[in-house]
């Protein structure tokens, strides 16, 4: 399951591929495969930009479809979730199996990892039992070459009875041949004779005994032997699906069938030495897979995984593992912050120049000042601020993250940190969702899908907001530079202080995340730790160009759309509040006066609390709102130097304590509008969305209160 995907906004019914196809419609190609096989790369390479992502109906399992043309024919490529097997142990596998079984794609392409053929053949062999229109795509052949693994793909094709194409999707090698094979299988030019796994006498006999009874209720195009085996295994999810999809009698509810299953099971029991049907099935599949892999793949040059082992010994070692991780994270942040600085400035200047031109236009057109104010000072300026602050860092952070993900390093992070999360009652993969949250909390929340268990997923979702996103970095950095760094001398050391402040905030945020996770897992979200199975894929050289392009485009679009949808209305609201006078004060000032007692309890003041509230749509406008309020300027303002800002804040009663409390509250407060909306979409529960709002806020209030009062009591501020 890929971590770095753009926020999904589309819901499919899940079944409409067939309705699009049919006479003259596109040929439907399902894309299946184990996780970590480069399946997404195959998908992206074939479909380019002609794709969209969404959810499978009723599930939060990602779903992507795309189109491509080949030989004048249209193809609809459906990217199924990565799965180890179709014998449904998880929602992903159920989705993949149901699609292949019941949606009847024209061709199924199974992507396998050339460096790990034996394990991958498990899924291939299972799919061959369901449909004969299969093309096996052995991907990552460049990695196999690097590891001196010799593959005999023609032999593999003969043994499996279906076309096999070797590809290196990252560089585009073999994709043409893949499309050709798909074309030929779809048109019937190639007729395949897929290998059938031999299950050994006990199971084969038991299945044969059951087949006649099964044939009565089975749909004609579903293999009876396959169905008989599934019934012997006791696959209840399949039965539920059959009932739902085909409105046939539920095999588990038909008495004759149930009796047949029982007697077949008894036969199996007698002859099979007491081993369960499921065990026998998987054992037979793997025996076949191992036999094939032995003939087809030859590891020359001895230990082909030497480099991976060495690297892992370093990166997950007791002494170096975690320091290296922190250092890498620090580097990522440093590059993000240092790299985003100049572009942000450029964008801000460009927007400002444009604003002046627009202002001139407004005057020339004789527009009333309130209109110019609302549109220009309110909406436009907020939009400009949000874009120039958010776009550069996001456009750097996410590609960097994608790079680490494609490299294969991220699972190692989960591996290193799992014990902390397990003791907090959570899941090791939460470390990864937290990291995503550093870029953008909405993305972090979506990333929580990689956690299978619903309880642990919810913990990860509820605590994601403790991870400060790119939008909160400016707040943290600016305040740290002024009140801790003493005014930010020079660009380089300024970046250094900035990175250090952010890193400190992150360590703090991690501690809070673990603490709150623990509390949640012992109170509202009690339960047992789920099974933790984490695959550590081989390290791969990421393809820089593609990552940058895709990530950059995804993130840019996200920031721009969010600016339009969320920031523009916020800007209008802020302008209205700052310009609507009731009595002696503007609404903004009234709000600040009202909130002041509350604010000072927390070490802040009324304007700051107002700013946080008004910053609900977007975290990055909090400090600008504070500046605007203090200057009574009525519009968001940027101060050109840190000294000016420092002066302004000090003039309004700020001390080091105020700065610390503001930073603490920034780290521990309600999620921004986009994130909250995403949480609602992911959890589909008003209750948990409300919890996601309240939990960080309450934590923040408590922490700020304690810090402020303690400091005052001790006479420190």
């Amino acid at each position, binding site marked *: 399951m890929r971590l770095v995907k753009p926020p999904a906004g589309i819901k499919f019914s899940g079944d409409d591929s067939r309705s699009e196809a049919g006479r003259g419609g596109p040929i439907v190609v399902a894309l299946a495969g184990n996780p970590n096989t480069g399946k997404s790369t195959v998908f992206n390479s074939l479909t380019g930009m002609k794709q969209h992502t969404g959810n499978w109906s009723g599930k939060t399992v990602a779903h992507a479809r795309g189109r491509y043309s080949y030989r004048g024919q249209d193809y609809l490529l459906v990217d199924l979730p990565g799965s180890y097997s179709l014998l449904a*142990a998880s929602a992903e596998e159920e989705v993949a199996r149901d699609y292949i079984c019941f949606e009847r794609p024209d061709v199924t392409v199974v992507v396998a990892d050339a460096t790990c053929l034996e394990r991958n053949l498990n899924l291939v062999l299972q799919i061959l039992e369901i449909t004969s229109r299969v093309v096996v795509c052995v991907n990552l052949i460049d990695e196999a070459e690097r590891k001196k693994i010799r593959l005999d793909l023609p032999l593999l094709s003969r043994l499996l009875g279906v076309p096999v194409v070797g590809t290196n999707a990252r560089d585009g090698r073999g994709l043409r041949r893949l499309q050709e094979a798909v074309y030929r299988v779809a048109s019937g030019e190639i007729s395949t004779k897929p290998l059938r796994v031999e299950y050994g006498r006990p199971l084969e006999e038991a299945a044969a005994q059951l087949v006649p009874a099964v044939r009565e209720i089975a749909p004609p195009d579903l293999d009876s032997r396959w169905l008989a085996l599934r019934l012997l295994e006791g696959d209840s999810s399949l039965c539920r699906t059959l009932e739902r999809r085909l409105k046939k009698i539920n095999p588990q509810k038909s008495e004759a069938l149930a009796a047949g299953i029982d007697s077949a099971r008894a036969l199996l029991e007698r002859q099979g030495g007491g081993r369960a049907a499921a065990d026998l099935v998987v054992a037979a599949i793997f025996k076949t897979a*191992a036999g094939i892999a032995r003939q087809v793949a030859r590891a020359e040059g001895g230990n082909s995984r030497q480099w991976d082992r060495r690297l892992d010994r370093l990166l997950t070692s007791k002494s170096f593992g975690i320091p290296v991780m922190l250092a890498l994270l620090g580097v990522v942040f440093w590059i993000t912050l240092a790299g985003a600085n100049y572009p942000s400035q450029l964008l801000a200047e460009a927007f400002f120049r444009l604003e002046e031109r627009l202002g001139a236009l407004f005057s020339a057109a004789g527009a009333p000042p309130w209109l110019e104010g609302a549109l220009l000072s309110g909406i436009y300026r907020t939009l400009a601020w949000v874009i120039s602050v958010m776009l550069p860092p996001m456009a750097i952070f996410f590609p960097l993250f994608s790079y680490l993900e494609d490299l294969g390093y991220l*699972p190692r992070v989960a591996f290193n940190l*799992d014990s*902390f999360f397990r003791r907090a009652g959570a899941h090791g993969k939460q470390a990864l969702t937290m990291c995503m949250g550093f870029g953008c909390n909405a993305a972090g929340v979506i990333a929580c899908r990689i956690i299978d268990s619903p309880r642990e997923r919810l913990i990860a979702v509820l605590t994601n907001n403790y991870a400060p996103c790119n939008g909160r970095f400016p707040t943290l950095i600016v305040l740290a530079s002024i009140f801790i760094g003493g005014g930010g001398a020079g660009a380089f050391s300024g970046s250094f202080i900035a990175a250090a402040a952010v890193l400190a905030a992150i360590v703090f945020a991690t501690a809070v995340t673990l603490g709150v996770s623990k509390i949640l897992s012992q109170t509202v979200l009690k339960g047992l*730790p789920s*099974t933790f*199975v984490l695959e*550590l894929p081989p390290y791969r050289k990421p393809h820089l160009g593609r990552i940058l392009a895709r990530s950059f485009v995804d993130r840019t679009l996200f920031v721009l759309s969010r600016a339009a949808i969320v920031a523009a209305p916020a800007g209008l609201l802020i302008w209205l509040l700052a310009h609507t006078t009731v009595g002696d004060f503007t609404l903004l000032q009234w709000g600040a006066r009202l909130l002041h007692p509350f604010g000072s309890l927390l070490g802040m003041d009324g304007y700051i609390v107002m700013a946080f509230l008004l910053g609900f749509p977007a975290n990055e406008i909090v400090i600008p709102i504070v500046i605007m309020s203090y200057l009574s300027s009525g519009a968001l303002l940027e101060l050109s130097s840190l000294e000016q800002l420092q002066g302004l804040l000090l003039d309004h009663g700020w001390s080091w304590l105020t700065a610390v409390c503001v930073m603490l509250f920034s780290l521990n407060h309600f999620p921004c509008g986009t994130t909250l909306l995403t949480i609602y979409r992911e959890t589909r529960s008003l209750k948990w969305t409300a919890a996601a709002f309240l939990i960080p806020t309450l934590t923040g209030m408590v922490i700020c209160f304690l810090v402020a009062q303690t400091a005052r009591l001790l006479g420190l501020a």
Partner: protein
Amino acid sequence: MTRELMPLHELPVGCTGKVMQIKATGAIRRRMLDLGLTFSAEVAALQKSPSGDPTAYLIRGAVIALRAQDAAQILITPAH
């Protein structure tokens, strides 16, 4: 030499063993089987995480990390 059964999490790093039995049931058992932990499959303990848990194992050519509490459900005979 008697071949005793040992839970997987006790297999020292650098050693290999053969899977004899899986105590887990249900979906977890299925997941373990599908990863290749079938009867007499070879497993090697590659390395532990900095805190000692989870441990990375080599299973049918792929590296899979398992927590001790889950690896304890898999009984193996070590190869000496």
